[in-house]
């Protein structure tokens, strides 16, 4: 009986720890705060975006101007990315055809 209780307790603690790790992204890479975190927080995994954005940033404006443009639109990245191809708003980054907002967000990530 004590053994079963101990086991149940350990599982509960492990589940709580895993939940906390997920909730507070304890094992995710953390980046210093930036003036653009409201935008960059929409990218769950920033590493590939930084790598991809390094190609996009060459032909795009500065971070401040990019951010201003993205905030002006008002919609979140996923909403924009889904609708843009339907509206013919795609762009080419190093040969990849992507929604315009993907290029902009990735370029922003690469500039920080």
């Amino acid at each position, binding site marked *: 009986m004590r053994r079963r209780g101990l086991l149940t307790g350990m599982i509960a603690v492990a589940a709580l720890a895993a939940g906390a790790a997920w909730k507070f992204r304890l094992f995710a890479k953390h980046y210093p705060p930036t003036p653009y975190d409201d935008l960059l927080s929409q*990218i*769950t*995994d920033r*590493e*590939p*975006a930084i*790598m*991809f*954005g390094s*190609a996009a940033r060459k032909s795009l404006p500065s971070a401040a101007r990019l951010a201003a443009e993205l905030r002006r639109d008002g919609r979140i*990245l*996923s909403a924009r*990315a*889904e609708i*843009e*191809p*339907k509206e*013919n708003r*795609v762009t*080419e*980054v*190093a*040969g*990849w*055809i*992507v*929604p315009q*907002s*993907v290029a902009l*967000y*990735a370029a922003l990530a690469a500039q920080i």
Partner: protein
Amino acid sequence: MSAFQDARSFPKDTVLSPDLAIIGGGPAGISLALALADSGQSILLLESGGVTFDAQAQKLYEGKETGVAYTAMDGGRLRYLGGSTNHWGGWCRPLDPIDFEDRDAVPYSGWPFPRSEIEPYFARAQALVEAGPWVYDKAGEAASDSGPLLGLAPGGVYTSWFQFSKTKDGVLPTHFGDRYQNDLKRAAKIMPLLNANLTGIRLSKDGRQMDHLDVATLAGNRLVVKPRFTVLAAGAIENARLLLASNDVTAAGVGNGNDLVGRFFADHPIPRDVATLVLFDGRMPPFYTNFLTLPNGAVLRAALSPRAEFLRQKNVVGSLTTIENETKLDAFATAAVETTAEALRVDASKAKAFSLGCGMELAPDPDRRITLSDKRDALGMPQAVLNMTISDDDFLHFRQTLSELGRQLLAARSGMIHLSYSQRHEWLSAMDWGNHHLGTTRMSTDPRKGVVDADSRVHGIANLYVAGSSVFPTYGSSNPTMNLVALTLRLADHLRKALA
């Protein structure tokens, strides 16, 4: 049954007087002869080679290429019975209706008639190339048991279908020489004459009639053929060469009063690995990368083709994009896929990438042309010189179609695309050719714009015709063989009346 005759065994200065002489025993020549076998008219089918490959005959194809690197003149065609079907891949697809249209944005485009003019001949052409029941763009439904079509949002590119000549169970495509040899022998009124090379098309003094043909063999025999009608069916390079070289009555060559013979040569560029297509779920329907054999025997493969509305809207010419092999993504490409998939909220953990191939259409270009060299072959005929061109617009047009394909994949949230080449030198370094020779005796009702009229008759000459893809004024992106056979069957109907 009339056995094949060998011109080398004919006495010197033999004169033959058939009703119809057909120059060239390739798909056009053989189809034409067989179509008229029951016409009651005597038909002489002149073939330069024998029934099998002969190096000496093949050498008569040697020539020179200038401009953009291109297949050697004796490399992309075969000079023996069956012609270039002896090495064709068996890919068949009808030309699209837009290929026949006169489009303002595509200079020199347009046929003298719409596709409906040759549609009645498609079924017989399909039977001659042995590509099974006519399915093509109705194949999507038939193939649905094997999987869904590629997930594309509405737009300019759609899934189109090739059919194949006799590739079922590993049997090679139909080689017209092998396949129709016995039919030719069985036809009482057809005399196939092998090792017989046309060396001159001789006109009447007023230049309005074809009077006789000079024929020679590599063994030194000389024959004269005096047919009522003649059809050149020797392929786009050779048809032009023969017309230009026959310059004793008209100095510019036969049918070349408006300096058009040999111009507008075309082929289908097939640059390799033009793009990479990524499917987020990794599930590529099998009929895009492999043959699909339907229960009715049709052998199919799916490709991606631009819609006519897209071509008109974007002012581009056609293309057919094929999905080839699975390929690996490097770190940057993986980052591009992950970033995009995340933004689209799709799972790309099982994504797979595939290289894309293609067949591009070239816009007509009068400077892409066949002329004659000072160098002569073993029969004393001037060799052909090809000036090959491909414009930056040709690449740009195809790139626009690929971009549209990428947009449609994104809009469907099914995948994305990477374009491999943006610079001219990149395209050229990946270049290969379909060896589909087209356009050198283009068709137009206006003699200032075409060498032959809408009946394939050489303008200004009453009894000389041209068959094959050399009369195509606009080329489309479909492989030409089945289409040129259909056009030849239409010519057969015209000649049947003319000969009667």
